[in-house]
């Protein structure tokens, strides 16, 4: 099943803060299903880029269309975003998910049970989130995102600082979601993870788009010097 929000057409996207451009004239079309990975050094504008795609930040100019429709409230409700540092309500695991249930009439109690099972948190349902480890908190954030049944899921370095077991669990859930037809757009600095997951790569540097290529080509024959330097572990200035 193909994601109904595709293609994403981004045309001449600019975003400035205090006259300093943070995103510069980005134009790209993301057509394919599967997992798109956004890469680039720190300060490249990756987080800002997906915040714009999800409507959390407003670009100064440019257009973002999902299947030909400009980003609107309806489209935003068909998306979900997992933040780098999970934002969780100061409640129990189950109450965090019940809050999402209270927002959407079509979410049932059985759905909460299902996503808790999916991310391996069912045994912690009654625990307050402050008692969860970093990995468990991130898995809860993923469960919350999955509960929304988004057609498009953004992840902003969601696996940063997690142990390999937690990363593995999150990756398998993402692959399942992708196989079900959900579009995944993921930011990561972990090249190995990008190689494991990515179908295509968007490479940003200094707020500019340098490359959008299929993953296998990006990792073997990157088109830009900047991408090659990034993959070689060189410091990009």
């Amino acid at each position, binding site marked *: 099943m193909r994601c109904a929000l595709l293609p994403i057409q981004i045309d001449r996207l600019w975003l400035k803060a205090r006259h300093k451009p943070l995103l510069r004239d980005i134009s790209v079309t993301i057509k394919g299903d599967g997992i798109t990975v956004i890469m680039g050094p720190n300060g490249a504008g990756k987080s800002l880029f997906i915040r714009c795609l*999800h*409507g*959390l930040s407003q670009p100064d100019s440019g257009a973002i269309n999902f299947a030909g429709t400009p980003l609107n*409230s309806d489209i*935003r*409700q068909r998306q*979900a*975003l997992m*933040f780098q540092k999970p*934002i969780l*309500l*100061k*409640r*129990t695991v189950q*109450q965090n998910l019940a*809050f*999402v249930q*209270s*927002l959407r009439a079509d979410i049932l109690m059985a759905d909460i049970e299902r996503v808790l099972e999916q991310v391996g948190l069912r045994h912690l349902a*009654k*625990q*307050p989130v402050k*008692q969860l480890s970093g990995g468990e908190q991130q898995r809860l954030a993923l469960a919350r995102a999955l509960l*929304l049944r988004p057609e498009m899921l953004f992840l902003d370095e969601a696996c940063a600082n997690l142990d390999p077991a937690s990363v593995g669990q999150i990756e398998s859930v993402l692959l399942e979601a992708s196989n079900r037809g959900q579009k995944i757009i993921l930011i990561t600095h972990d090249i190995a993870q990008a190689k494991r997951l990515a179908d295509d790569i968007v490479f940003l540097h200094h707020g500019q788009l340098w490359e959008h290529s299929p993953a296998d080509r990006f990792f073997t024959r990157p088109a830009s010097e900047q991408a090659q330097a990034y993959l070689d572990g060189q410091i990009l200035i």
Partner: protein
Amino acid sequence: MSIFQEALSTAFLLILQRDADLMEIIGLSMQVSLTALFIACVLGLPLGALMGSREFRFKQSLRGIFNALMGVPPVVVGLIVYLNLSRSGLFGALELLYTPTAMIIAQVILILPIIAALSSQILEDLHEEYRDLFSSLVVPPHKALLAYIIDARYSLLTIILAGFGRAISEVGAVMIVGGNIDHLTRVMTTAIALETSKGELALALALGIILLLLALLVNFAAQQFKSFQTVQRYGGGR
């Protein structure tokens, strides 16, 4: 017998005998302070939530005013309320001066800024923390507001207790607008001031001890409520 021992024994005696005058004073103290607290919460918490979670014109000025009013001397509040409620004042026709209602009005003015300013700060911090999540989930404003209040409930309870503490311990304003009239507007703090001025230090200290016990009791009850809620919600812990 030292004055403290005498005060302690007087206090226990008064409590054990359920002295009618004392019970009346305690009753009126609680009635006035709790009513003032309730009104201040009804007005102050939504105001705090508004200042904490919304952007509007003059928001910073309003917050500055409330912050400044937190430190206003009670006698000044008492004087202002007195001037307005006195016969020649703006609300003189209501004949509220030297009544418990006048004391409630003065206490509301004293504790409203505490409730509004401190709750606005707490709710603003929570709003900052949740803003991106609520925007991402497209949470309607009323549900967001409810979530802030639920998640900040213990901090808000502490603020409410601070407001109660200010109200129950206040003497200057209630003395001016209430007049410390026996069987009508005499509360614990004004009774303590009166007994001290009469040289009845043991009785004044006894009243002080009772006032302290009352304040501790209310705080203890709030703490118990918090613990009970935690156990109800989270069970015995991990």
